[in-house]
């Protein structure tokens, strides 16, 4: 663990140099610990793959104070990180049909696998939420099976439909809103990834585990799935 100052109201805590499950666990645990122990002085926490950025209120605490309290909150957190009790496992229904899986054919060609094989490989694994960013609620999940890891498109789409499930290298993700994006789209979930009127706001939190469940067209529609295109 390494704490570094960034500016007069921000510092960052690093937990490792590589993307892996163990570091993701440390980040998740640290985020929970900091949130509960320093809620009186922090204004924002930005966890990512290997780090947590901490924004604090300079009117309430200075750079010495925040470093001291972060150390206090995080020491001993390392052992507890293993049990990982705070993380939840979410199952997300995904329709991998041709109307919504805009790039599934390309992924098949790239990997030399059949449609069914790509869907099976993508949906049989449990992924971890490594980071949330890019757009509100956009969760970066890892790691995909190397057989279906395909680089992002050379020219991004101007608009990727809401709920699209994409692959980029060894990562996979769901688009919570219609934004530009270059990921290879292999399906669509009818689940709402962000809901500003709900209490939890975003369905997935960093450190959570996510499993995709392949559903048919009928179930996609019954769950409220939409076919709105570009």
């Amino acid at each position, binding site marked *: 663990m390494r704490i570094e*100052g960034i*500016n*007069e109201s921000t510092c*960052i805590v690093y937990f490792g140099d590589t993307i892996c499950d163990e570091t993701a666990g440390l980040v998740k645990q640290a985020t929970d610990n900091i949130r509960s122990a320093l809620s009186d002085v922090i204004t924002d926490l930005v966890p990512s793959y*290997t780090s947590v950025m901490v*924004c604090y209120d300079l009117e309430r605490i200075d750079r010495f104070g925040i470093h001291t309290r972060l150390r206090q909150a995080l020491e001993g957190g390392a052992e507890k990180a293993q049990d990982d009790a705070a993380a939840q496992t979410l199952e997300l229904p995904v329709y991998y049909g041709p109307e919504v899986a805009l790039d599934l054919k390309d992924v098949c060609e790239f990997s030399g696998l059949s449609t069914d094989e790509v869907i099976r490989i993508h949906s049989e694994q449990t992924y971890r939420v490594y980071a949330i*960013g890019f757009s*509100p609620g956009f969760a970066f999940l890892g790691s995909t099976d190397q057989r279906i890891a395909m680089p992002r498109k050379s020219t991004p789409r101007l608009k990727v439909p809401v709920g699209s499930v994409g692959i980029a290298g060894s990562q996979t993700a769901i688009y919570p809103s219609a934004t530009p994006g270059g990921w290879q789209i292999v399906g669509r979930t009818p689940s709402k990834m962000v809901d500003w009127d709900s209490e939890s*706001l975003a369905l997935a939190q960093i450190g959570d585990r996510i499993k995709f469940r392949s559903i048919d067209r009928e179930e996609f529609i019954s769950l409220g799935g939409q076919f709105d295109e570009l």
Partner: protein
Amino acid sequence: MSFEVLDPGMLTQVQDMGRLGYQHIGVTTGGPMDEHAFLWANRLLNNPLNAPQLEITFGRLSLLAHSDTSIALTGADLGARLNERPIAPWQTYEIKQGDRLSFSMPVVGLRAYLAVSGGLDVPARLGSAATVSREQLGGLDGTGAKLAKGDRIPLAPPSAVAKASVPYSEIPDYRKPLRVGVIPGYQYRHFPRSARARFFTSEYQVSQNIDRMGYRLSGEAIHGDLDGIISEGIAYGSIQIPTDGQPIVLMKDRQTIGGYPKIGSLSALGAGQLAQRAPGASVSFYLTDVAEAEARRMIFNHRLRQGAPGTTG
């Protein structure tokens, strides 16, 4: 009680100090591009410091007052007129029903702040009225829309306000070439000594590519020994160095996380001074540290609280 928008201008948005506490789910902060000017505008009216205001970028805004109130105008001089009489920034004015308030073109600086007594009476979304168009949050109706012709801007009931102006010593000169402190951090040590020397001795120009997300600068290219990094939190004012070596300073509507190497960060007050510079302006950097940035901010906060001759309260 309201202002009617006769002409929305180039870009006029509702802003408060920003949407705090949601960056962990990817929601950016938004907020005023120039905190110094924003905070003084509320201070002049004795408003809560977070009260929503209008951030007027470039000018051409025209408003019609449907009620009496007081306003404070700070930041850029965008050629403001009250009923065709020119008015200067950094002070308060009384507004009568039927008055017209209009802005033409930038004379000095880029962004003006217009506060009204009691603040704009607009809804908060996720705890803030700050407009972030990309995320469809904030603004007059909460959906991130910028001002449009015909909009009615609801105002809070005004309080009695004494005439006040910002002390001369607290008014920045946006025409001066900007020399701004950089706090080393993030991937600073991955930039070789020669690259750092070039960065701190070069003069950069503000490019045409500036918006609320970031300020792209042009000048001497800087290269570190990293092409990319594992994505991490991006602080307001941090300086990304992409592969072309041209610095990008991240502003209020930045993405919450990103994967470009960063050589360090400006303070919030430093980034605010940059936000008042138009394309072509000169920017140079000097090495500072967190301690100095902290001290400067505490002095600013103190002066803001204490006021000074000419301010009320």
